[in-house]
Every structure is written in C-alpha cells, then in structure tokens.
C-alpha cells in the first residue's frame, strides 16, 4: 500500500503532524481540570483531534480518521457543554491518545494495527457517547490472533456488544442523534471518504463484537491505571525505534535559518576580501590580510554556533512526557505528587535530547516509587500531603545541567552501605564519604528496595542510567538527606559532535582528555608517590590517595604496569580525572591547549577501539585521539580495590 517513494514522504508528513497533534492533545488533556470546562483548552484539543482526523482521511489512513472521529465527538460534546468534563472522561481520552500513538507507530513500521485494542477502546467511547458510565476495560495490549474464548465473560461482554449495534442502527434510523455524520462532513471529505469511513465503522463494529474483551464493570480506576503504566515502557520503546527507521527531521525556527544565511553572507564577503590577495600580494597588505583572517575566524565560530543551533531543541520536548507519567504513576501508587518543571526552554542537541529521555524517566520513577512517601507517612512526618518532584534544566559553562529533585524520604545511607557490604561491593572497614556511598546505587545489580515492584527495585536500572549518561559524555551526581529528599544532578555536553578537550602530550603524541572529566592538574611531587603491591602507584593529593597510571603505558597497550620509575616522575604532570564518583590520576608529559574539538568516530572507517572515544583533526591537520575516560579507568584501575586491600593488610 505504501510502497512507492511519494507515499513514503506523505506518510512521514502525516506522522509528524499527527505526532505533534497528539502531543497537543495530551498536554491539553492534562491541563484540563475535572468539573470545569476551560473552553480554550478544549478547543485546542478539539482542533488537534480534528486535524488528525482530516489528515488521516486525506492521506488514506481511514482507521485513524475513523477512530479520531469518535474521540472528536466526545470533545465536541464537551465543547458544547452537553457533556461534563470528568476525571474518567479525561482518562478515556488520554487512553485514546495512547491508542492513536500506537496506530502512528504501526503506520510508521508499516505493520498491522492493534485492532483488538482499537476496537475495545472505540466500543468504550461509543458506550460513553450513549450515556453509559465508562468503567474502564482491560485493554488487550497486543493483537492476539487466537483469543482464548474462556476469558470472555458472556454476561460482562453484553454492554460492549450492544453498544455498537445500537450505533449501527441509529446511523440509519436516527440521524439527529448521530453527530458523527455531521462532523465527518465538516472535514472537507469526498463522498467516497464518508462511505469508506462508514464502511470501516461497520467492519470495526463487527470486530468489536468478536473482540476478546474482558469487561469488569466493578473495576476500580486504580487497576485501570495499571494498564496504562504497564503499557508505558512499550510505548517508550516504540518512540525510540521510530526516529531510527525514518532518519527523522527537525522543525527549525525560521529565525535560526535566517541567522545562518546572514552568516553565510558574511563569510562570502570575507572570502572575496581574502580572495583578492590571490592575484597580488605585497607587504603593505599584511595588516589587511591579518584583519581578514581574524574576520574569517569569527565568521567560522559564529557559523559553527549557528549551525549547531539548528540541531538544538528545547528540553521541553523531553520534559513534557513527565506530566502524564507523574499523573498516572502517582494515582497508581496512591500518592499525591506535584511535578514542577523549570527551564523548559533550555536548548540542547537533538541527539542528546533523544537519548536522555529514558534515563530521566527512570530517575523520575525512582523518585516517585522510592522517594516520595505515602500521604499518611508524609503527614505523620509533618510534611505537606502533596509530594514535590522538580525537574529543572539550565546551562552552565558549556554544559547543560538537569536536576531531578524530590522532597521525599531521601536515600538511606546506612541501608545502602549495609547492602553494598552484603553484596561485596565495599568492605566493612572502608571509610566512605556520604556522596560516595550514594554513588553505590549506580553499581550493577544494586537495589535496596525491600520488595521488587512493577516500577523499580530490580536493581537493573541505575547502572543503565549511569551508563547512558556516560555514553553521552556526561556524568551524574547524587545528593541526599534523610527525610528531606534527594537530588540527582546530570551534567551533559550541549552536543555530541563537539567536545571541550584538554590537549595532553605524551612523548611525541598528543591526546585529548575531555574537559568534563578533569578535576584539576598538578605538578607531581615524587615524595607523595607510594608504590604498593602489584606495582600500583598511589599519589597523596592533599588528604586523598589517588591511584595513578602513566598515559604512556596505556598508549603502549599495557594497562596495569607503570613504566616509569618514581624518580622519573619529577617534572611530569598529573591530570586528576573523575569518573563514576572516583578519582584517578593520569601522568602526562605536558599540558597543551584547551580547545573545542570535533569528534570523528573511529567506527566510520575502522572499528571501536576500547579506551578511545574517537579522533579529531587538530589545527595543523594531524589526527589526535580522544580518550574515553570511563572505559580507561575501568581497564586501568579495575583491580584497585584488591590492591588497596593488599596495601592495608
């Protein structure tokens, strides 16, 4: 059906527009307060639904336009005041938005629609339109070809089976009670479309009658929400898969494009100014040439920034899903939680933005599940009944900082420590600062949750969170206070393509250490170097012992052995790096410039080399390698714990 190129393009346009529309609908629905009828919001939602329906009809996605039609009918009734805005109604509409998202994913993947889910939801909408109270239906999550007939409770199924039949009757007999006929006509349709739409309706109606629906009219809203939250991870995956398959596109503000074009114009002027020196050049022109080169330099920098701006999107895109997530999860967990978003307009690179979503979801869920206490507990502790989760983003020194703060129970230092000792991650007599104890939660397989819940507690999450953030070249820190709350701080580079680097020299080679990993650099005082068993060297920096290694040894392929004598360290420098909450020292010959470098992946023409994050081309045209500090530290110092034990023994 969608084989040829043109169709592909049309599909992409439709999907992009509809996804935006769905986002508008979702955020609008979340703004809507039950019992009130904020006309502007309802109109916004209605308009978004209407365009999706129109688009679906125009581009030939009849199922979408048909389903949206029912949603639109409900919204229309809310708009005209015929129907009250209820909590259940909002939930039903939110589920419809999810269902439409699922349909969009199916269209994108060119797979079949999840028909049972669509029909079940549609039947519920129809039931609501017919004045029945929506009690929530366990929506089948995936299309199962062979529904087990035993699970269909005949009695409970009746209302569902009845409702569509009523509709098909009213369709022909009572046009005045059937607003959808009018609405279809509104959306610039051809007669064929209307026919097609109603044909599909009949098909769907038939499907509904057959669909395996377990209807439990007595189901409490809480269990209904479980379905929503259970469906959430699947949705997240689909979201992630979608951009991969299409290559994706960005909507760019016209101002950004204009400023880019202006800069290109300036560049052309500079070029023509410099170009005249090609013909003739005498010594008197030297200052002109210098000016021209200075101008070229500033043009280039501005152009680079401007081009990067095009890839920048506000973090709002990643934050927006949390309103829904927190609403659903807090209801599910029976907690009262308020979500505060700050700095939503902070911009960051699209790639970073796409990859940071999942770690953020994880952290917010953790805060909700483990952090925020139940209402009773909070009241008992003298806290306000409503918990607070704050997501904020801001720029700081070329990085973007995202903070997730909650006013919940905080991390339990003693429990983390005892669990870590139990798991052999640390020894009992180790002296650890509070923050390094908190960092233990990022170890693989670490969980202090007494009970594994749906949401968290399996201990697979936090190490993945940290790894994802490290893959993006960032880092995460924790700060927490018992009874007051905890704060997770994520620092990320603004873009993946360019990195702030410190050039270090080792022998004749220049390497680049990402500035983000460097804590400080000091001259080595050989008296402070201690060699312990296993040839491991420790350096006493103020009151801390840092394991150190020679970068030259790493570059020669040896990870664990120092090649230098202590005496040779005299005029060398120690670059103190920090990764995963621990500090290490790298011995280098000299520090050179700090500069922004463009990352070129080695994988493009070769393959991944462990210990290297990529390569870059320096000003003189030579290639320099960028060190991957987390993986280097892991390789060089992974036996440090043993070494330290040996040293203390």
């Amino acid at each position, binding site marked *: 059906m969608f084989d040829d190129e043109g169709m592909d393009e049309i599909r992409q346009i439709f999907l992009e527009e509809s996804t935006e529309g769905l986002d508008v609908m979702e955020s609008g629905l979340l703004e809507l307060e039950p019992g009130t009828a904020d006309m502007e919001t309802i109109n916004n939602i209605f308009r978004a639904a209407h365009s999706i329906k129109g688009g679906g009809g125009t581009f030939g996605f009849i199922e979408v336009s048909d389903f949206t039609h029912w949603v639109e009918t409900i919204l229309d009734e809310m708009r005209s005041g015929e129907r009250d805005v209820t909590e259940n109604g909002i939930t039903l509409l939110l589920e419809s938005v999810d269902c439409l998202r699922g349909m969009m994913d199916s269209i994108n993947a060119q797979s079949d629609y999840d028909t049972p889910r669509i029909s079940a939801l549609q039947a519920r909408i129809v039931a609501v339109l017919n004045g029945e109270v929506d009690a929530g239906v366990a929506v089948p999550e995936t299309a199962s070809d062979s529904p087990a007939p035993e699970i269909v409770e005949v009695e409970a199924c009746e209302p569902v089976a009845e409702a569509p039949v009523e509709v098909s009757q009213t369709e022909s007999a009572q046009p005045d009670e059937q607003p959808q006929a009018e609405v279809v006509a509104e959306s610039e349709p051809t007669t064929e479309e209307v026919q097609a739409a109603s044909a599909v309706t009949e098909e769907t109606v038939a499907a509904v009658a057959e669909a395996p629906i377990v209807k439990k009219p007595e189901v409490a809203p809480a269990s209904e929400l479980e379905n929503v939250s259970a469906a959430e991870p699947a949705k997240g995956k689909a979201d992630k898969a979608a951009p991969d398959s299409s290559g994706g596109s960005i909507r760019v503000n016209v101002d950004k494009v204009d400023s880019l074009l202006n800069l290109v114009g300036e560049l052309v002027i500079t070029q023509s100014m410099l170009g005249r020196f090609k013909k003739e050049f005498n010594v008197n022109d030297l200052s002109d040439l210098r000016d021209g080169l200075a101008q070229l330099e500033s043009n280039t920098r501005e152009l680079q920034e401007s081009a990067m701006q095009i890839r920048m999107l506000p973090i709002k895109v990643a934050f927006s899903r949390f309103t829904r997530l927190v609403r659903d999860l807090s209801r599910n967990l029976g907690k009262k939680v308020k979500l505060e978003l700050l700095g939503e307009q902070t911009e960051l690179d699209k790639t970073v933005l796409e990859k940071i979503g999942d770690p953020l979801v994880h952290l917010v869920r953790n805060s909700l599940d483990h952090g925020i206490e139940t209402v009773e507990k909070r009241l008992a502790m003298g806290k306000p009944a409503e918990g607070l989760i704050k997501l904020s983003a801001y720029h700081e020194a070329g990085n973007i900082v995202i903070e997730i703060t909650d006013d919940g129970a905080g991390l339990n230092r003693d429990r983390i420590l005892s669990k870590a000792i139990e798991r052999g991650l640390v020894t009992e007599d180790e002296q650890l600062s509070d923050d390094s104890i908190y960092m233990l939660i990022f170890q693989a397989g670490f969980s202090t949750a007494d009970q594994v819940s749906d949401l968290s507690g399996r201990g697979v999450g936090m190490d993945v969170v940290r790894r994802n953030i490290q893959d993006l070249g960032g880092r995460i820190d924790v700060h927490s206070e018992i009874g007051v709350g905890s704060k997770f701080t994520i620092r990320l580079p603004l873009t993946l393509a360019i990195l702030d680097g410190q050039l270090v020299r080792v022998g004749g080679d220049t390497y680049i250490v990402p500035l983000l990993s460097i804590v400080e650099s000091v001259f080595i005082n050989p008296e402070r170097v201690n060699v312990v068993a296993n040839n491991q060297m420790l350096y006493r920096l103020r009151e801390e012992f840092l394991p150190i290694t020679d970068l030259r040894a790493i570059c020669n392929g040896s*990870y664990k052995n120092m090649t230098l004598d202590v005496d040779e360290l005299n005029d060398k420098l120690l670059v103190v790096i920090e990764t995963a909450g621990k500090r290490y020292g790298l011995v280098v010959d000299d520090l050179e410039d700090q500069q922004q470098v463009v990352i*070129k992946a*080695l994988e*493009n023409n*070769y393959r991944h080399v462990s210990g290297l994050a990529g390569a870059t081309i320096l000003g003189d045209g030579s*290639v320099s390698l960028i060190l991957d500090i987390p993986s280097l530290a892991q390789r060089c110092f992974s036996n440090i714990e043993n070494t330290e034990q040996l040293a203390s023994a």
Partner: protein
Amino acid sequence: MNQDQVQQAGGIDLNPDALQFLTFILNGEEYGVDILKVQGIQGWSKVTPIPNTPDFMLGVINLRGAVVPIVDLRKRFQLDEVNYGPTTVVIVVKVAGDEGERVVGMVVDAVSEVYNVDAKEIKPSPNFSGSISTEYIRGLSMIENKMVILLEIDSLVNSGVLDLVPSELVV
C-alpha cells in the same frame, strides 16, 4: 581503455565482463585491485598510532577531513619489513562494510599499472602459497605474460584487516 572509460562515464557498459584493475607490487608479486574500489593513491605521510591495535595497523591519517586507518600489508601478511622508500605508496580503497562504506589506506611497495581484464579470462586461484593468503584472492589473470593476482578487496579489508582484534593484550 579509453573506450571503457567512455562507456563507464555514460553509464552504459557494453561488455559486462570488461573490468579494470589497478595493480601494485608487494614482495615482488603483482596484485590487482578493482579500480572502482580505488579512491586514490598518495605518498606516505605521518600517521597517528592507535593504541591497542594489531601491529599492522599503523594508525590513522587525516584524509580531507576524514579519519582514515592505514594498514601495512607487508606486516599484515608477515613478510619481511622494508624501510619505506620513495616508491612506497598508500592505495586508498573504499570498500563496502557491514555499516556503510569504509575508507582504508594500504601501504604497498609500489603501484604498477592499470590493466583491462575480461572477467571470463580470470582463472580460479589454485591453492598456492603466495604472500597474501588465498582466501582473499578472486583469481589469477595472465597479462602481458605476467601473472597478476586479483584480490577480493572487500573481504581482504573487512575480515582480513579491519575486523582483526589484537590477539593478545598486554595486561
């Protein structure tokens, strides 16, 4: 040869069997690479060595803004090492990899000629012990009474060179 070029430029290949090979010398033997895979030939320039790679991986160079690995075919096939001289050249080839195309430079002793070879004239390679192992050889061809060994450059570069990991790391 001119005629062939015209045909290729026009996108019409009248004789689908007509192939062109660039040949190079390695350890006294002449090897041929499909000329459509060759991106350029350039002199030897300083490379940036990459740690923890096999010794035949000399390092990477900046080739018009791309970071391109350079391999020494002599080291790769364990031939005697020779000092790089004025005729030492790097043949830059573009091969199809698993994830898109890879551009790689191969250091060889010297570049020789460009020959037209009819695909039907390519003889299957017997099992013989040349400098380059037979699994990377597409066939043999007699050109001007010389034997030219035609290479299967894609598999040589991918599985024969780039995908080899250092067999033992000093730990």
